[in-house]
């Protein structure tokens, strides 16, 4: 059973033709299912929790990176055992706002429908930032950022810098030694560190996870045991 969660930004008339085409294609592929349209009366957390409680096995995020990130967070944060049975699918509405889908090899809407049909599954180990989770990347572009790694040492940027934290999430085997990678870019060059625990302090700027969700520092970023199963394309690039 598939449940399609349409983000509220696609509920306007602008996307109606596109949604009609998607629904027609999904029906042709025998992938039609329940559609939930987010809006004032239905928020994304309630939609995810309801679907998990009702035993839905595949939730498809129809929208942007933000839609995907939010659904991942609400699946992982759900307390019930049923959440472990849930698989996430993605239909990217606008390629410019769907970098996660692109990385997972889902480059267009027509690709997405075929990929749902092929159902190639991959399990991803998430990284944790405060009480939230991210799949690929967290970044902060600001001056005066202080970074503390594994409580052993502090990194100070003497010039404005882009701080990028990468999770290499595909689970090949369950390695307890999973580490995250920190890269710091400034005009003069690049720095690179690996870590298990990172504290990010900056009073002036937010950390953006997976290009969509804003987290206000101070933020603790760690490896996590949480995993999510996602339907991916053949040409995934991570």
């Amino acid at each position: 059973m598939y449940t399609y969660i349409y983000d509220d930004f696609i509920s306007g008339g602008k996307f109606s033709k596109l949604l009609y085409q998607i629904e027609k294609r999904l029906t042709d592929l025998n992938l039609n299912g329940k559609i939930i349209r987010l809006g004032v009366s239905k928020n994304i957390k309630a939609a995810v929790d309801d679907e998990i409680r009702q035993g839905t096995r595949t939730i498809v995020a129809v929208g942007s990176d933000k839609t995907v990130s939010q659904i991942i967070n609400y699946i992982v944060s759900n307390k019930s055992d049923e959440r472990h049975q849930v698989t996430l699918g993605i239909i990217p509405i606008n390629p410019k706002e769907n970098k996660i889908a692109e990385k997972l090899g889902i480059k267009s809407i027509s690709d997405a429908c075929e990929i749902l049909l092929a159902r190639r599954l991959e399990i991803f180990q998430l990284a944790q930032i405060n009480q939230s989770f991210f799949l690929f990347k967290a970044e902060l572009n600001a001056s005066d950022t202080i970074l503390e790694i594994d409580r052993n040492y502090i990194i100070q940027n003497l010039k404005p810098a882009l701080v990028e934290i990468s999770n290499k999430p595909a689970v090949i085997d369950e390695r307890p030694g999973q580490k995250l990678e920190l890269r710091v870019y400034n005009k003069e060059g690049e720095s690179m560190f690996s870590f298990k625990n990172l504290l990010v302090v900056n009073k002036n700027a937010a950390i953006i996870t997976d290009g969509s969700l804003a987290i206000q520092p101070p933020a603790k970023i760690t490896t996590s045991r949480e995993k999510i199963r996602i339907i991916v394309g053949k040409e995934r690039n991570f």
Partner: protein
Amino acid sequence: MFKQDAKENYKEEFGNAETIIGPSVMVKGNFNSTGNIVINGILKGGVKTAGNIFIGDHANITADLEAKAATIGGEVRGNLKIKELLQVAAGAKIIGDVECALLSVESGAVINGKVMMTKDLPAEKKEEGAVEIEK
């Protein structure tokens, strides 16, 4: 010649560096690693790695260093304990005691401190041009 060798050494040994401290970045604290480390910024504290350390021309280090091998181009204030080869480039300045198995120093480099050679390096690791000083 030394500079050329150092560059080649950098490419071979540090292309797969686990840690890079870049320019305009300052690291304070104790730094333990198992891989290769490249430092082109500022470091205050201590560094211990089972791999190699490359310290660039503009790096400024106030720390004790322990590594398998090291190439020093910038300024180091602290003691160095290197299991194998220590290469010191022309512009380098070391203020501290040095302990290593093999030592190569380019003309113009400054070492202010005791130099002690250890002798437990396997013979095949010795490189042409490296200096071995009897204790």
